[in-house]
């Protein structure tokens, strides 16, 4: 018995046991964490939301499969990361986009941004965000037609309107409050997500629910979201007011646009953010500052997407310049 086994012994380098984490487990957990926000998008934007999201996911998974097959690489669609890219792209699209838009966006995200850079782990930019940026630049009209949230499943012919951030930019806070009745109602509606916007970004509460799950599981840490949100809040308060410094409304900036989705689900993308926690704080601050810069001074009402993409470029550099807290680091003092 003892002898018989010999030729079957497996020899490999230590450690010989491993924790349970795997790439696919993490990716599917993130997908799961987006479920509440996805359900809210169905609630507010109807079947159209389902259609757009499914198109994104389908196109993302299919293009990953096809490109991996044609490059003769292992097919990794089951790890959930292409699915996640598709889902995130869907959540970043307006509900009423024509159906070629999700498909083109997913192909750009997966083929160009991810696989041509070497696949998962090697891409510099967040694939879903590049997909969205490409769409926004190529079809600026279609990408900025916002349907009013209906919560009534009226579907395809929902009225179009502007997003709260758009109104804030063009007509000011007063108009926005007027539209929603009073300030409290404005905040409440933003919080639950009853407003125009991209599919998955509108419901703050649903996004926070998913984020709490990821924080609890340890799949994301507080470093990026907190520094990102805090920077936006503080800068909005300082510079966001019409009547001078320190008169801005931080809450409206925090609750509107794609900030929550971006801060918890897109800026935290492992591959494209710094790995060292201290560096992540720098990254988050950078994202926050650029977001506010674009929102207040730029040509677009929303800046989260470009902020994250810009900071993606800096992630490798941040990682090289921020050192981990080394055990037994020799102090530069002479004995």
């Amino acid at each position, binding site marked *: *018995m*003892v*002898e018989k*086994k*010999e030729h*079957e*012994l*497996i*020899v*490999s*380098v*230590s*450690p*010989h*046991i*491993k*924790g349970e*984490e*795997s*790439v696919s*487990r*993490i990716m599917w957990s993130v997908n799961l964490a987006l479920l509440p926000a996805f359900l809210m998008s169905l609630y507010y934007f109807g079947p159209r939301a389902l259609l757009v999201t499914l198109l994104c996911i389908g196109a993302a998974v299919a293009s990953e499969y096809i490109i991996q097959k044609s490059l003769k690489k292992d097919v990794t669609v089951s790890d959930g990361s292409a699915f996640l890219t598709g889902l995130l792209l869907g959540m970043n699209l307006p509900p009423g986009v024509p159906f070629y838009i999700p498909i083109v966006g997913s192909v750009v995200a997966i083929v160009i941004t991810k696989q041509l850079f*070497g*696949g*998962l*782990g*090697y891409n510099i930019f967040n694939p879903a965000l590049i997909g969205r940026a490409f769409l926004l630049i190529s079809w600026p009209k279609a990408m900025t037609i916002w349907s009013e949230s209906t919560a009534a499943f009226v579907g395809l012919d929902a009225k179009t309107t502007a997003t709260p951030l758009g109104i804030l930019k063009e007509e000011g806070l007063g108009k926005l409050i007027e539209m929603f009745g009073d300030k409290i109602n404005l905040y409440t509606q933003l919080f639950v997500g009853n407003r125009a916007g991209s599919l998955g970004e509108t419901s703050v509460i649903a996004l926070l629910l998913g984020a709490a799950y990821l924080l609890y599981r340890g799949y994301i*840490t507080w470093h990026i979201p907190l520094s990102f949100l805090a920077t936006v809040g503080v800068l909005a308060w300082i510079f966001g007011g019409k009547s001078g410094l320190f008169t801005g409304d931080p809450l409206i900036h925090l609750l509107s646009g794609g900030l929550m989705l971006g801060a918890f689900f897109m800026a935290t993308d*492992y*591959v494209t*953010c710094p*790995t*060292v*926690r201290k560096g*992540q704080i720098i990254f988050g601050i950078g994202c926050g500052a650029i977001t506010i810069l674009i929102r207040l001074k730029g040509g677009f009402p929303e800046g989260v997407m470009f902020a994250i993409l810009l900071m993606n470029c800096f992630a490798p550099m941040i*990682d090289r310049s921020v050192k*981990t*807290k*080394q*055990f*037994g*680091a*020799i102090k530069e003092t002479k004995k």
Partner: protein
Amino acid sequence: MLKLATFERGIHPEEVKELTEASPIVKAALPKRVVIPLSQHTGAPAKPEVVIGDLVKRNQLIGSGQGFVSASVHASISGKVIAIGSFPHPSGRMIQSIVIEGDGKDEEMSLKETPDYLNLSADEIKALIKDAGIVGLGGAAFPTNVKLSPPKEKPIDTVILNGAECEPYLTADHRLMLEQPEGIVAGLKIIMKTLGVTKGYIGIENNKPDAIEAMKKAVSSEESAYSLLPTPYSIEVYPLKVKYPQGAEKMLINAIKDREVPSRGLPMDVGVVVQNVGTAFAVYEAVRYGKPLIERIVTVTGRGIKEPKNMMVRIGTLMSELIEQCGGFTDGAVKVIAGGPMMGFAQWSLDIPVLKGTSGILVLTEKDYVSSEEYLPCIRCGNCIDICPMGLNPSMLSILSEKGRYEEAKEYNLFDCFECGSCAYVCPSNRPIVQFMRLAKSMVKP
């Protein structure tokens, strides 16, 4: 409750100590044959003192240490030397070894006891330890007498006994602390006296409350070696948080003394000498009874073993014999490891001897075993950075090594990595980070 002492970061692998922690140490059957490598320790190999055909008795010197850092080896059974040559070693290499065919009589060479060992001088103690071929039993197998002879410019003020046993599965130290606590304390006092130190600690992970109790009792009752030490002296049993790698020297010192061994440095740089509890017991037996290191406790365990046991094993016994005595393999057994699951060596054969530093023989099954052959690119999740006890960046190091940029890896403190395996344990991409570390270390000068 008081917060237990520990170090920063680290991991919590499944302990699986229940397989053997309640099993008293049993004597393994007298081996039919032993293979005793001349190199079982850090440092120069021993020089053979016997030739083929010689008859030897148990305890007899068969290889003597060469140079300052080296250790002697002794016959662990009586019989005839039948071969001296290269034989497989748990490290995976072929090592010069002496093979003794047993005569089944287990005749011993009588030992020189020292009942009044309390009056020995430090140099006499070190000589006895050296003659007995004692090395660290925790794994690294560094010659003990060398560790007890620090250079003058490194004053030592503390001795720590390592009873953490943080490797999952292993229970050899745990059982020893339960069954021989007085001997361990006596050994600690001998070590303290040799170093002229008055402060001693015994660090034990909190998952062994019975061992903590037993050691506390032994510390307070064991008065016999009192005169050994200058008064006032103190010995403290120190419960530690259960966390891997709590038993690594640097982590242990950090937890108990809050001192950080400097990068690339040794415990003596911060005035500490660490010894494993098993080593302390061996020191006691060597100094008191003149007993050479010819046997040790080995935990034969894992779900791949039918009857897991803690065994007192003669050095040089082949693993196959021990596995047989533990009922053989269960059906799913696929991997045999010398040592623990985190830092042990996987074996390709079972005709491999137990060494002085072999604390366990672990057999994993398909269910436990995770292949490290297939791995993915680093997804930069940062898990490894969060847990590396040395505060390194294993993600960066493994990528640099993978790309052949070894010199750059050195700048990221490659040589501070002691290959504890925690990073690979948490890596979702299943990257063989330890292998990358070893590769890089072998490619650049330290």
